[in-house]
């Protein structure tokens, strides 16, 4: 099962590398990856817990006139998650007035420690109210199904019940989704804020009417 997923990941990485070479033709050289056959995630959703409540299903598509950046992470993550959230925050600020057209959704891969309010507070320390979505489910299968659709995965380090000091491995990618629920761009971990802002500007030009 895991080997299959790894194989799919490798295959898609190879495919996307060729896609990357191809995207020079249309003007903007994206810093992220654009697949020849983009991932479609509109049929998937997770419960939204923004503000700490147990809200309804949040479908993976951007609100009209916006782009949605999706990340699978956890709040006790010291290195990757705050790096990416800081880059997204900085990119939104770099975009000036257009920054509010970028919304960020973070889905917790560690619901045991990320209570709804904890996750929501975490995001509120990076993004203005109304511009972030905290997503969380206690249903492992539901989360795995959604992550599969993004070709993402996470593994929680084995730990004793009650032990709260454990690490979680997870895909470090940020996915940019349009209002049809198409993943139009994928940034592997390490893409800097300026590059994100650059790509957002190009995507606004391509996808959003002025």
């Amino acid at each position, binding site marked *: 099962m895991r080997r299959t997923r790894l194989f799919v990941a490798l295959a898609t990485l190879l495919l996307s590398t060729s896609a990357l070479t191809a995207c020079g033709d249309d003007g903007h050289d994206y810093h992220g990856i654009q697949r020849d056959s983009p991932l479609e995630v509109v049929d998937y959703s997770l419960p939204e817990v923004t503000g700490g409540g147990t809200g309804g299903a949040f479908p993976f598509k951007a609100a009209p006139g916006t782009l949605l950046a999706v990340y699978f992470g956890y709040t006790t993550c010291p290195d*990757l998650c705050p*790096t990416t959230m800081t880059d997204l925050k900085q990119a939104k600020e770099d975009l000036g007035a257009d920054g509010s057209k970028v919304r960020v959704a973070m889905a917790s891969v560690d619901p045991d420690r990320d209570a709804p309010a904890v996750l929501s507070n975490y995001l509120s320390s990076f993004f203005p109210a109304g511009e972030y979505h905290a997503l969380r489910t206690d249903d492992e299968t539901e989360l795995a199904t959604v992550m599969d659709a993004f070709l993402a995965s996470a593994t929680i380090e084995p730990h004793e019940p009650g032990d709260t000091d454990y690490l979680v491995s997870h895909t470090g990618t940020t996915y940019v989704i349009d209002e049809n629920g198409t993943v139009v761009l994928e940034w592997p971990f390490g893409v800097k804020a300026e590059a994100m802002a650059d790509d957002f500007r190009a995507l606004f030009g391509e996808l959003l009417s002025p």
Partner: protein
Amino acid sequence: MTTTLTRRSLLAAVAFTTVLGVGLAACGDDDDDGGAASGGTAEVTVTDPWARTSPMDAKTGAIYMTLEASEADTLTGASVDMSVAMEAQIHETKDVDGEMKMSEVGKIELPAGEAVDLKPGGYHIMLMGLKSPLEEGQTVKVTLTFDKAGEKVVDAAVRSS
């Protein structure tokens, strides 16, 4: 559970001893400019040590820097004052089968004359059990222990990136 607790208390003890050690050293050798404990010529240059601002409620943090050793050396430990965090560990984030996996490595090899980066998505000093959020403008004192160059205390500036 027992293992974790034991390791944690051991580390806490080491951190505490480290703090004591620094205090003691400071009393004894006024003339020494904090150089190598071994008395040799080994020196490690630490450039741009910084700690990321931590989101509210976050219990973990990370410290980054660039290290360059004059002769081959090893970073074997890092500690911060217990008033900052319960524990500091040397970690590395690596891409393993498409997942970014973080693990405690305990040490970092420093080849002679080669800059080694502790940076987001790679080596870092992980702070666990933060006592309060790390805020822009603060500094965090970090005691680094090197195999040959001995101990070095640096001030990591807290900033967002």
